[in-house]
């Protein structure tokens, strides 16, 4: 009897103990579909850029970070520890799941192409930031935001590299996608899909001719690629 009595007293505590869970949350899946123009991207396949160079890639990795969702009232929900490394692993797709998203109506999503707010690799490993994942430069320089390793055959028939390793704060590019109408994220899982278009890294506004320049690492020209991927490289599919 005593037990039942003590249980009875404790009941309210039990119910309120997990108060954090009372706010309803859901999962948001972000899917990234790697493309080259209208084609599905594949490693080793030859594509043509705007300048007419035929090239292929053996590696393509992209960091996005600081994902935020804008609720219909304009309030921002920031995904914690939001550093995500995107690469075509499932065919040309990559999917990541954001858990504990408040179930609400949202009107926009925003994030950066690149890694926000890190200066070196000394800190803790947060999200997908990991110095051993082939995206780090060195101790002081931090992470590459976009990495593309590939090659093309030049006019003389020689193999040449297409090496795109872009970092530095100037190349951190904000992406904002307003939904055509508010979307209610609720239930088990919700999904947003994005295209990542390889060719957009080499055009609009700067058409990159690999015959002239095909090595973009920390040089001034790397910023041209940054300006290219600032817009049109990531597209929300609705």
């Amino acid at each position: 009897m005593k037990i039942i009595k003590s249980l009875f007293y404790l009941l309210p505590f039990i119910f309120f103990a997990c108060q954090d869970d009372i706010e309803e949350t859901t999962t948001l899946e972000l899917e990234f579909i790697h493309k080259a123009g209208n084609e599905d991207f594949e490693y080793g396949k030859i594509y043509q850029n705007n300048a007419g160079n035929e090239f292929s890639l053996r590696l393509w990795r992209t960091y996005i970070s600081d994902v935020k969702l804008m609720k219909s009232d304009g309030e921002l929900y920031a995904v914690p520890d939001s550093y995500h490394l995107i690469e075509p692993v499932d065919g040309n797709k990559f999917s990541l799941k954001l858990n504990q998203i408040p179930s609400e109506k949202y009107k926009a999503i925003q994030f950066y192409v690149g890694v926000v707010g890190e200066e070196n690799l000394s800190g803790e490993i947060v999200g997908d930031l990991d110095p051993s994942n082939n995206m780090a430069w060195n101790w002081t320089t931090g992470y590459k935001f976009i990495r593309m390793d590939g090659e093309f055959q030049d006019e003389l028939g020689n193999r040449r590299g297409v090496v795109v390793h872009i970092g530095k704060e100037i190349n951190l590019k904000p992406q904002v996608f307003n939904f055509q109408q508010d979307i209610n994220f609720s239930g088990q899982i919700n999904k947003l899909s994005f295209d990542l278009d390889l060719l957009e890294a080499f055009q609009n506004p700067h058409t990159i001719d690999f015959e002239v320049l095909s090595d973009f690492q920390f040089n001034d020209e790397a910023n041209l690629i940054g300006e290219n991927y600032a817009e049109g490289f990531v597209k929300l599919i609705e």
Partner: protein
Amino acid sequence: MRLIYFFLLIIFISFGCDPKNGEFAPEDDFELSAPAYFGSFNERIPEDNPMTTKGFELGRMLFYEKKLSGDNSMSCASCHQQSNAFTDGKAFSPGIDGQVGQVSTMSLVNLLWAEHFTWNGKMQSVEDQSTEPIRNPIEMHENFDNAIRKLEDAGYNRLFQEAFETDQITEELIGKALAQFQRALISSNSKYDQYLRGEYNPTPSEKRGEQLFFTHPIPGQLRGGNCGDCHLGPLTSGAIDEFQGFHNNGLDHDENMDEGLMAVTGNSTDKGRFKTSSLRNIALTAPYMHDGRFRTLEEVIDHYDNGIHQSSTLDILIIEGSNENQASGERPQLFLSEQEKEDILAFLHMLTDEEFISNSKFSNPFENENN
């Protein structure tokens, strides 16, 4: 009595909210520590072979156990000598029958941040890699029935019982124990690490060498040694995923090059690609390259500077890496100055870790037994 129930309930309540609290670490938890700049590693330890103190200790004994060889004359440590950062100073190492292999002994260091072992990437795990030399006719040349019988006679059953909760000695468990020992071989106290931790002030040459090592050269803009494109980050080893860390570094041309990764994938575009090794303790692991062709680090630096052979699979990160503008199709060269070569060499010497090569936890446990 009532109080006890009350406390029990409190416990249930506090564990109810956060699922993490419900998971208990294994009792016998072997402490691995590594700097954050090496990257995460806990998830790299196979679930079916967690690190334990008993497993590590058994692995250490097996690593130095000559009974694992056909004539009881060799152990893993015969070729992987701690004082040489677990190499043996030879281009090719003779096995028990005096026959030599075709590739040089690899250093064993920071293996947690690696996959696809041996020079051509043939071995998927440290476990697989560990038992192969025991069986290999030109290495330790022993079959596992014999080896296991000898271990049983030497009283190893009890040690397997303690490490794996079974006294049945198997090839699989021998591999697991050896893998546990080798995963613990973490080198992170070189001068370079001390510098990264703010405990060591590098010389101007070492500092310049670090910059050159990690810099991809851009003619007219940035001087670089182009090393860090393949020898990544503070680990200075190749990329982990898939075969990204395998590169053709221009040792030979198409006609005379060794197969390398192609022997594993069957893909002709992988010909001449070899595992990019860690440069940790590189000053102690001569000779260099898969076939030990370079005797000194000076020769290695000269190779990258001015000795690259062109081929159809030469790595694009080498083709696109020069301090001067080169014409299309020209043989890639770095055009480093003598001072720059010296600086890179000074940086490579920073990677030597005296503590690692003298750490008694990794040394021969039989040393006092006239073994």
